[in-house]
């Protein structure tokens, strides 16, 4: 790297993409979109399901990537521990259900609802964030956890407006209006959903990258590091925190709208603490504050949970292993063990990588303060300011 700098002003790929983040996100999104289905065809993975199943889970994983990206703003950047993040996911999904389903009789297009859902979620983000502004640390965590529990309870019990536990069915699907020969997305073909969510993620990532390096992004980090010092430097902590909640919530709202449209049916039980927690685990395991890290973390955890562990049983059975001594793997019903293994995986991953799989540069520095950083490359993580 440094050798290239010394001579002619050659730009390496790394430097180029470090300088052109938006372009690199588009390129990366395209590359990842192409590679993932190919990987799914390779033997160990192909044993877990056919290509269509995999593409379907990629689209679902995309929902969680969006959730993790949004939560990363709140937890990773602004340092506000939010344990009730699923509330905004639920609000986005129900907004979609109200805007486009037989229940209300409205038929607003999915693409419009994406924006509406994000806006509604953002408003609720401010609304639910406001009472928490005075709270610090774990008191904030428990209040957000409380909101995260209250929102599904409201959706479950306000039957007249939400159809209670049955949830809302017949939610309209996205449509390309004949573009690429696709009208309604339907249920069988997963590819349009996959492509759509990748595009949404790419837009969200570009937006979040620009935001992270902006004045607001720096204010978030300042608040995370020391709220009092940030306030005395003239940062308006009230608006800054509320904006973190609003932007985090709106990303979650996007995810909710897409999720409702893809499933075409939603019920309050899909938005419990498990979702909030899963999103948090994705952020922490991916590497808090690192946009690429949390995306990868979200993808890995989602696929591990839904494809890896749920299909582990059929995968093991398909291997036709001979019994090893007294242990006959074929006799074990792995479906029963999926959450046990999931818990185990979470604990082990955390024990081995407490800073996450892909820690942000700044966090790495904090964790290894003693070690000299001379050898570090300025542009390694595509994060030239060192913020995050």
């Amino acid at each position, binding site marked *: 790297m440094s050798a290239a700098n010394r001579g002619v002003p050659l730009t390496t790929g790394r430097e180029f993409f470090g300088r052109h983040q938006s372009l690199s996100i588009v390129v990366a999104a395209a590359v990842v979109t192409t590679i993932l289905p190919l990987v799914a065809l390779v033997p160990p993975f192909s044993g877990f399901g056919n290509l269509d199943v995999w593409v379907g889970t990629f689209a679902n994983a995309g929902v969680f990537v969006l959730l993790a990206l949004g939560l990363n703003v709140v937890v990773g950047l602004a340092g*506000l521990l939010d344990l009730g993040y699923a509330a905004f996911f639920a609000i986005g999904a129900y907004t979609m259900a109200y805007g486009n389903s037989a229940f209300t009789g409205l038929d607003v297009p999915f693409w419009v609802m994406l924006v509406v859902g994000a806006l509604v979620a953002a408003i609720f983000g401010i609304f639910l964030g406001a009472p928490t502004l005075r709270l610090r640390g774990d008191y904030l965590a*428990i209040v957000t956890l*409380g909101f995260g*529990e*209250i929102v599904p309870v409201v959706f479950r019990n306000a039957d007249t407006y939400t159809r209670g536990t049955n949830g809302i069915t017949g939610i309209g699907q996205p449509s390309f209006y004949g573009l690429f020969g696709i009208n309604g997305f339907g249920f069988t073909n997963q590819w349009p959903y996959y492509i759509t969510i990748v595009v949404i993620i790419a837009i969200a990532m570009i937006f979040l990258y620009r935001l992270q390096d902006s004045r607001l992004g720096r204010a978030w980090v300042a608040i995370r590091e020391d709220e009092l010092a940030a306030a005395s430097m003239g940062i308006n902590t009230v608006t800054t925190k509320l904006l973190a909640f609003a932007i985090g919530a709106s990303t979650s709202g996007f995810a909710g709208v897409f999720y409702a449209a893809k499933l075409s049916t939603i019920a309050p039980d899909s938005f419990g603490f498990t979702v909030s927690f899963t999103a948090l685990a994705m952020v922490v395991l991916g590497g808090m504050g690192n946009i690429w890290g949390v995306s990868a973390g979200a993808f890995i955890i989602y696929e591990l949970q839904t494809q890896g562990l749920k299909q582990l049983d059929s995968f093991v059975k398909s291997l036709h292993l001979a019994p090893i001594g007294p242990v006959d793997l074929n006799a074990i019903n792995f479906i029963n063990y999926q*959450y046990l293994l999931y818990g185990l995986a979470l604990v082990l991953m955390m*024990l081995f990588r407490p800073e996450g799989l892909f820690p942000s540069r700044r966090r790495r520095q904090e964790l290894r303060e003693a070690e000299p950083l001379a050898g570090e490359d300025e542009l390694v993580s595509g994060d030239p300011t060192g913020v995050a």
Partner: protein
Amino acid sequence: MTTATATGPGRVATRLDLGRWTVPVAVAVALVAVYVLLIIGAGPQAQEQFINALTIGGVYALIALGYTMVYGIIELINFAHGDVFMVGSFVSWWLLTTLGFNGSIGDPVVLAAVLALAFLVAMVVMGIVGVVIERLAYRPLRNAPRLAPLITAIGVSFILQNIVFVTISNSIVTSPQVIPNPVLTLGPIQIRAINLFVIVLTVVLMAALHLFINRTRLGRAMRSTAIDREAAQIMGVDINQTIALTFFIGSALAGAAGVVQGLYFGVTKFDIGFQAGLKAFTAAVLGGIGNTTGAAIGGFIIGFIEVLSSVFGYGRWSEAAVFGALVLVLVFRPTGILGQQLGDRA
């Protein structure tokens, strides 16, 4: 609860200067208010409902004590704690059914012996489980980023739930209610034996814990570790041992609550730990996290909120009411009812 005195110059910045009588008076006023509400809502059943609330609240308080002790000493929201309570209820279920009991025991001597055994076994087993969890999942992460142990805590919660799910049962399990069910009359109060037992037990355990923390050497070690770990270490406190002890006591109390769950409700299930843990944690925060008296008060408050909401016909909303109360309290007192002003730690 009123803000008694303003923070004067030179004073330590605790929001509420708890005078000697503030807490008892406030508790008495709150209890009378609740009782009036219960009379409005439940009429003749007011007394019974009041006792129910005390019983449920006692269970929450027992679980909340473990949460608050662990938080006080290592600042970790131990999400696995609710599941320790759940496993405790299964230990008691296992013991009682293995011994061949499936209904109430008439002979008072046998009953006392069985109860003592059940509580002893459940508390010791869960205490050990708690220590093992701390050793394996939390201690290696003591100097890791703050959220890392939170994730392992939830991972451990998944593990405990699913060990029970896989090895015992995936649905509701009936636990023997060994305490017979006569209604005792104590002066003007009519109370079922089981309620009396649970309330007395909670009070005894809380008093014992209070004495232990405030009057013994080990309790002093726990308090000093909670205040400043490094300073305590310099003064000769064995930090690892003290933290392990905290986990042992907290988990043992959750184990006791688990036995009560079986005795009082007669049922248990692999997933009851999550909701119970959540409410108990809410109780701990409501009272001021890190403060054992606060956790007890918080537990009873939640018991009353639950009973009140079902008395007025909004049982389905009790969860929302509990968390609503939490938000309200924290908006006005950001560190809970008895909480101290915390420093800036996020």
